[in-house]
């Protein structure tokens, strides 16, 4: 790029050039004022993860033994220019056409003719860091202006039993993360990053709820958790831990779950279509029979469970829980062994396509390995849970075909079409035209505005785990008096509406750092991510006139204003023509 002239550039690159080497060169070039990344086949990189190689700055991890070796850390760069993504064919065609027609061949003499230009607007209000911007909001005197918002949303908690609020009982937690990081607004597909694992959790919850009635009596309970904001330094899990330590979890009025009561913490993480499942246990589990259970039950569902060859725990919510309560027995269930197999972790290309998902739409065949695999995994987990809670063998008759179909529908909802059949049974949603069918972005967002995915997934979890009750819509609003149950009115299969009675709870997923007065921002104890406020994000394309034309226009403008001044002066001077300007003032001082 020639830097001898004073033109600034918006660089348009294909996605496979969106790599550290290229971007670092653009970053250091002060003539670059913006970048547009074009996502179009065949220019798709084989790997792209904007996260760190050790995501969430996990301990015992460096570039040589990274969990996410594909990470290029783009999320943590201080970019001096805005970066836009163009992924729709219309925008891409327009940009390339305009460039080809007006800017080629591009050489020094090009500046004497009109050039195709892009104007990018993306002003971010926040500056410096979270403490500074929050302090500025709190100090704001006359101008009440918001610079940033704390990130966060809600966690989804589903205890499968209720118990007396004065007693405590041991719980087994099955958790998965709900969110995915995002570098671009509205683009956080997170197919393998989070969708497969929380869909496995939803399926396992569904299976467990269907066999739960066979358990006569138990002193232990199952709690399903979908954690939010985990990509941002574990907002959801750290808040749960904080609330548990305060004795406020899951809420102030109902029964309590404390860290000491956690019998097992199972976390499902990054599942793919491989039947090889790796277990990452905490040291407390080495002598526990539970892992053998997983291996033997898994074999029944033709899955190959094995112990990870790496001893330390991968980046996970479990680490947050363990940090607060060291002797916690936990297990991470994943499809990766020593490092992530996902080539697009937390990136915009982590889509149904890269996952190899094909919508079965009612008929599962041998092609649909992913659906079957998740169904087997969910069945294994639900069976083991049954054994843990009841102490007896789990029933064998889990209908694999039905579960695979349900998994297929779930994946379709989260990967391809937010207005899918299952979601319509939950809420009324508009049917989008085929071209606009898209999944809901999984980026956690900021706390004042909840991500629709949280509510919908929570209701879906409740829908899949509870039986409808015969109550009219008017009466389907009240919770029971001790706040253990909640009633939700859903659409139902025939859209006739149905009422469910569930133990579902939404708990805040906002970092404790924003609650603790005088929090020490440098302690790194809790997530302190905030998101800048912005308005008016736009990309405009236009023809920039040639330099000569610009100079002529400017000269004409200056000439006209000088001329007008002269004319006015002349008229004023010769007031015999017009005497309106020098008429004596009516008031005499």
């Amino acid at each position, binding site marked *: 790029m020639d830097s001898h002239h004073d033109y600034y550039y918006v660089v348009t690159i294909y996605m496979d050039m969106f790599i550290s080497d290229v971007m670092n060169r653009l970053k250091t070039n002060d003539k670059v004022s913006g970048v547009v990344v074009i996502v179009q086949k065949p220019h798709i990189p084989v790997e792209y993860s904007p996260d760190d190689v050790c995501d969430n700055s996990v301990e015992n991890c460096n570039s040589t033994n990274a969990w996410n070796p594909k990470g290029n850390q783009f999320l943590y760069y201080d970019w001096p220019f805005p970066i836009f993504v163009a992924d729709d064919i219309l925008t891409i065609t327009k940009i390339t056409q305009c460039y080809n027609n007006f800017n080629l061949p591009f050489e020094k003499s090009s500046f004497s003719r009109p050039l195709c230009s892009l104007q990018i607007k993306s*002003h*971010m*209000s*926040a*500056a*410096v860091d979270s403490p*500074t911007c929050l*302090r*500025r909001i709190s*100090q*704001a*005197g*006359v*101008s009440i*202006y918001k*610079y940033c918002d704390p990130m966060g949303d809600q966690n989804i908690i589903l205890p499968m039993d209720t118990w007396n609020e004065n007693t405590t009982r041991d719980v087994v937690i099955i958790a998965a993360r709900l969110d995915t990081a995002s570098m671009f607004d509205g683009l956080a597909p997170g197919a393998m990053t989070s969708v497969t694992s929380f869909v496995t959790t939803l399926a396992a919850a569904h299976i467990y709820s269907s066999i739960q009635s066979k358990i006569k009596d138990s002193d232990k309970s199952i709690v399903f958790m979908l954690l939010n904001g985990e990509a941002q330094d574990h907002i959801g899990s750290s808040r749960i831990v904080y609330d548990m330590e305060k004795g406020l979890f899951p809420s102030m009025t109902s029964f309590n779950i404390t860290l000491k009561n956690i019998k097992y913490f199972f976390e499902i993480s990054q599942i793919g279509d491989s039947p090889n499942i790796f277990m990452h246990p905490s040291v407390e589990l080495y002598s526990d029979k539970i892992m053998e259970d997983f291996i033997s039950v898994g074999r029944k569902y033709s899955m190959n469970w094995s112990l990870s060859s790496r001893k330390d725990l991968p980046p996970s919510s479990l680490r947050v829980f363990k940090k607060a309560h060291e002797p916690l027995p936990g297990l991470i269930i994943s499809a990766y062994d020593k490092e992530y197999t996902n080539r697009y972790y937390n990136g915009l290309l982590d889509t149904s396509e890269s996952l190899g998902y094909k919508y079965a739409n009612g008929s599962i065949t041998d092609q649909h390995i992913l659906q079957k695999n998740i169904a087997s995994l969910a069945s294994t987990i639900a069976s083991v849970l049954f054994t843990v809670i009841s102490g007896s063998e789990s029933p064998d008759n889990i209908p694999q075909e039905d579960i695979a179909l349900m998994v297929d529908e779930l994946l379709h909802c989260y990967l391809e079409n937010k207005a899918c059949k299952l979601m319509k049974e939950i809420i009324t949603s508009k049917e989008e035209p085929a071209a606009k069918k898209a999944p809901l972005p999984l980026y956690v967002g900021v706390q004042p505005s909840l991500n629709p995915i949280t509510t919908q997934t929570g209701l879906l979890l409740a829908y899949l785990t509870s039986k409808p009750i015969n109550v009219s819509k008017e009466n389907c609003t009240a919770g029971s008096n001790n706040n253990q149950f909640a009633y939700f009115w859903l659409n139902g299969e025939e859209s006739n509406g149905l009422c469910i009675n569930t133990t579902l709870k939404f708990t805040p997923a906002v970092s404790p750092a924003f609650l603790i007065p005088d929090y020490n921002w440098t302690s790194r104890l809790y997530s302190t991510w905030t998101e800048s406020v912005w308005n008016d994000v736009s990309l405009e394309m236009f023809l920039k006139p040639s330099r000569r034309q610009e100079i002529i226009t400017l000269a004409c403008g200056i000439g006209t204003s000088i001329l007008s001044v002269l004319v006015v002066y002349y008229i004023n001077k010769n007031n015999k023509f017009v005497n309106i300007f020098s008429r004596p003032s009516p008031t*005499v*001082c």
Partner: protein
Amino acid sequence: MDLSKVKNNEKLELCSWYFRAGFFGLPIVWFVNAVWFFNEAFRKPVYEEQRAIKRYVIFSGIGALIWSIVIGTWVYIFQSYRVAFGEFGDSISFVIPTGVP
């Protein structure tokens, strides 16, 4: 007000009032005084009150100059070091710009 239509003693009174008002932290009043009465003080033919007016004009001018140096220096310091002041910088800011430190 057109000074040419004001009597000389009224001019002096006006000028001295402006001079005195400037002491209440009003450098712009001093500045106005200096500019407004400059012609009266230095360019009009001599008259009785002119000496006094001249004195007021000079002192008003000096006062306004000192003030502008003080304000200018402070504006320079504030604009260049607001960020470095950190929390104190924000607390003495009326409007904090968006998007920049």
